[in-house]
């Protein structure tokens, strides 16, 4: 295998991503290992190594005695071709051993359009796709990540899912497997046992039936399987495992920097945002702990950039304390401190000024909708005034580049809302004319629109997606009304977002479509150069499934939803009331201005929600 690989490597792009051997990679003596885990990321190395969750879990699993967790990524198309012609099965980076030799195969899934990569990777590994075709304890496939909050489109392929944060549940699962392997359990016995661990969902223990109109009629739990699976969370982040010795890739990756997660959860409640609801409740991390971990991480990794990440870093209570300490350290060490997703408030402005002394970053806003009315509908608490004031300050400070992100097709959107985007852009240009300190370099306004995808566990989980034709009409309407030379408008192609919408709210009938799409060559769908819409449409047609059922149809409020069995903490009643408020154009204040009773605080016992 090694000789074969050495001969293939000169023929592929960026070979270093296939060899492992990076700084801080963990290798173990196989004679001391009882459980081998192949931790797969269903996309390429450059994307996967940028994923923070994977780094946490890699560390957590490898801390366990007798467990060796190794990394596996999807090969790029040139490598896949070489693997297939040279009969080289998918391998794990650390040991370079074939994935099919591993006990457990884990996937972390953060994006619906990487589902085909999961199947393709199993295929490249030479592992049967269907859970029921994999007999015995070898090659147990399990998965986690945000997409596991509606795992049904993968139900046939994955043995079990871990819902929510994995730092505690992963070791529990591995310990059980360790025992099962030592005592030579059957797969059925193991799956039943694993289903009793909190947060574990074993899809084969449930039977789905459908009504004549195609809607879900019932979900029957077999063999005493739990009727509700509640996601897991880490209650105390200060004492939780944090990997300060992170792998430092030897090749450039997408997010080539140290990453410090400052808190979990979100107080905002933007009604379209899945993470905003499904990652609740809010749990803080203290600035002292963060500072120590940041220094340790930077010293160990040698990175020249560190980013403070979370769903909304401006909402981190101790942001001032933390940055006051970090800025001098970073300046002395010539490390770039980046604080993404800052809001347009005063403190953030001040902080931006301070960070600017380290290195200049971009000015980006995500108003998501063009009018205040629609921003109220989606509960995006960002006003035009805030945007314009922030722009004015930035222009006066020498910025001449703004990026603006919007969605088209949000519930209740009218042409007036679409044109509101053009109007806002116009006002930004006017602001620049009045405030820019340096007009010579001109202004660039980048406007991007995405095609709204309704997601499970949000107040918009029942919504219709507009048709691709209507989306295109709205992009054209917008384009014809934004004629200033300084504006650059890009819009997402609707095809991918339509499929994303299908998979996001999909049920078990989509397993066949996925398998068929992969059989017809679909993979790396997130990459323009490999995405083929035709392949997907053919697969839907072949399986007799109409994608519209999952998109433009919309789901009834009384309908059983495929993901109803999964409890992310936020109650369905709360989502329903938020939906009602959306249609009434009523905002809901952020959690810090009064708890609105979403229910996620019930996941915490000892500590209160830190909203």
């Amino acid at each position: 295998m090694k000789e074969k690989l050495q001969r293939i490597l000169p023929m592929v792009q960026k070979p270093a991503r296939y060899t492992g051997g990076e700084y801080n990679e963990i290798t173990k003596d196989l004679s001391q290992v009882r459980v081998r885990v192949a931790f797969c990321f269903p996309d390429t190395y450059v994307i996967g190594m940028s994923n923070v969750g994977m780094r946490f879990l890699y560390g957590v699993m490898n801390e366990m005695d007798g467990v060796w967790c190794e990394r596996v990524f999807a090969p790029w198309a040139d490598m896949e071709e070489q693997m297939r012609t040279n009969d080289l099965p998918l391998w794990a980076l650390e040991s370079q051993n074939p994935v099919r030799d591993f006990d457990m195969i884990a996937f972390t899934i953060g994006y619906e359009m990487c589902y085909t990569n999961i199947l393709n990777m199993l295929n490249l590994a030479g592992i049967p796709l269907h859970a029921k075709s994999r007999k015995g304890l070898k090659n147990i496939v399990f998965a986690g990540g945000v997409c596991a909050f509606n795992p049904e489109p993968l139900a046939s392929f994955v043995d079990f899912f871990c819902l929510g944060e994995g730092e505690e549940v992963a070791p529990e699962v591995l310990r059980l497997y360790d025992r099962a392997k030592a005592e030579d359990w059957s797969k059925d016995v193991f799956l039943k046992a694993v289903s009793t661990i909190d947060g574990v969902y074993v899809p084969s223990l449930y039977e789905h039936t459908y009504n004549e109109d195609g809607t879900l009629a019932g979900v029957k739990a077999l063999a005493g399987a739990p009727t509700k699976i509640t996601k897991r969370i880490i209650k105390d982040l200060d004492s939780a495992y944090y990997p300060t010795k992170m792998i430092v890739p030897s090749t450039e990756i997408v997010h080539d920097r140290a990453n410090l997660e400052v808190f979990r959860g979100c107080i905002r409640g933007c009604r379209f945002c899945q993470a905003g609801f499904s990652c609740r409740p809010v749990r803080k991390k203290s600035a002292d702990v963060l500072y120590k971990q940041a220094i340790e991480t930077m010293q160990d990794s040698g990175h020249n950039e560190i980013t403070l990440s979370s769903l909304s870093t401006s909402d981190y209570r101790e942001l001032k304390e933390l940055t006051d300490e970090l800025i001098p350290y970073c300046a002395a060490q010539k490390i770039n401190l980046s604080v993404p997703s800052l809001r347009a408030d005063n403190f953030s402005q001040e902080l931006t000024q301070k960070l600017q002394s380290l290195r200049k970053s971009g000015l980006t806003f995500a108003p998501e909708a063009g009018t205040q009315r629609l921003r109220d509908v989606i509960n995006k608490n960002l006003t035009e005034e805030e945007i314009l004031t922030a722009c004015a300050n930035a222009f006066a400070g020498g910025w001449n580049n703004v990026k603006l992100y919007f969605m088209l097709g949000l519930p209740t959107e009218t042409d007036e809302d679409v044109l509101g985007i053009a109007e806002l852009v116009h006002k930004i240009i006017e602001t620049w004319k009045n405030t820019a300190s340096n007009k010579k370099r001109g202004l660039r306004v980048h406007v991007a629109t995405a095609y709204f995808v309704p997601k499970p566990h949000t107040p918009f989980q029942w919504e219709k997606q507009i048709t691709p034709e209507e989306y295109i009409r709205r992009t054209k309407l917008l384009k014809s009304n934004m004629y200033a030379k300084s504006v650059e408008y890009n819009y997402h192609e609707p095809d991918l977002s339509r499929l994303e919408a299908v998979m996001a709210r999909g049920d078990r009938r989509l397993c066949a479509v996925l398998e068929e799409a992969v059989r017809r060559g679909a993979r790396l769908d997130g990459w323009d150069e490999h995405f083929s819409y035709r392949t997907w449409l053919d697969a839907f047609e072949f399986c007799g499934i109409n994608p519209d059922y999952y998109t433009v149809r919309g789901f009834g409020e009384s309908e059983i939803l495929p993901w109803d069995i999964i409890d992310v903490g936020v109650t369905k009643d709360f989502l329903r009331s938020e939906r009602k408020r959306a249609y009434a154009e009523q905002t809901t204040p952020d959690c810090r201005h009064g708890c609105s009773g979403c229910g996620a605080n019930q996941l915490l016992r000892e500590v209160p929600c830190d909203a």
Partner: protein
Amino acid sequence: MLRLLFEKTGNAVWISHLDLMRLFQRAFKRANLPLKHTQGYNPRPSVSIALPLSVGVESTCELLDFDLDGECVDCDEICARLNQCLVSGVKVLRVYDAGMKIRDLAYLRCKIELKYDSGIPDSAECAITALFNTPSLVVSKTTKNGIKEIDLIPMIRSICTIREEKNQIIIEAVICCQNPTLNPAQIVQAICKKLPEFCPDFSKCSRIEIYNKNGEVFR
């Protein structure tokens, strides 16, 4: 200016030149050896590698020039500290506090392994030896400005062919590595072009030593 001699072997050969520069920059940081930064809008740590190495090529004679900020650190200590912060396959062999001028770097001793999976074809070794013992060997090379005809012979100072095992021929050559530059891979390409029947199934190049104009080891 400080200079270090390092080797790049094993799986590290797949790391590209640019990635290797970043890798060293991080290693310096980990080793708490702050690099001097360039002046300007985007200050960058100043490290430079003498002869960029193609991906896949092994070497035991790479040079990297750098400057440290702050207090002076003993060369042997720099070497020891860096080696604790590097990846497997990249190893600092020695650190020098001064060195020859890079522009005086002239020749490179390289080794080329030619592998024939079903045994070395008859008379391959003689034919290859003969190919490089002609007064002129013109091959075409694709450059940024289109295809160019180049003569390899003036750039080869010495070359010898050794038959090793029954599947492998080894070529050892001393070639020009600066003004003009001959890439060892071009020697393999010339064989495949001029002697297609002796084109190997797989080939691998490595750098062994570098010299100045007078043939003295370059450091």
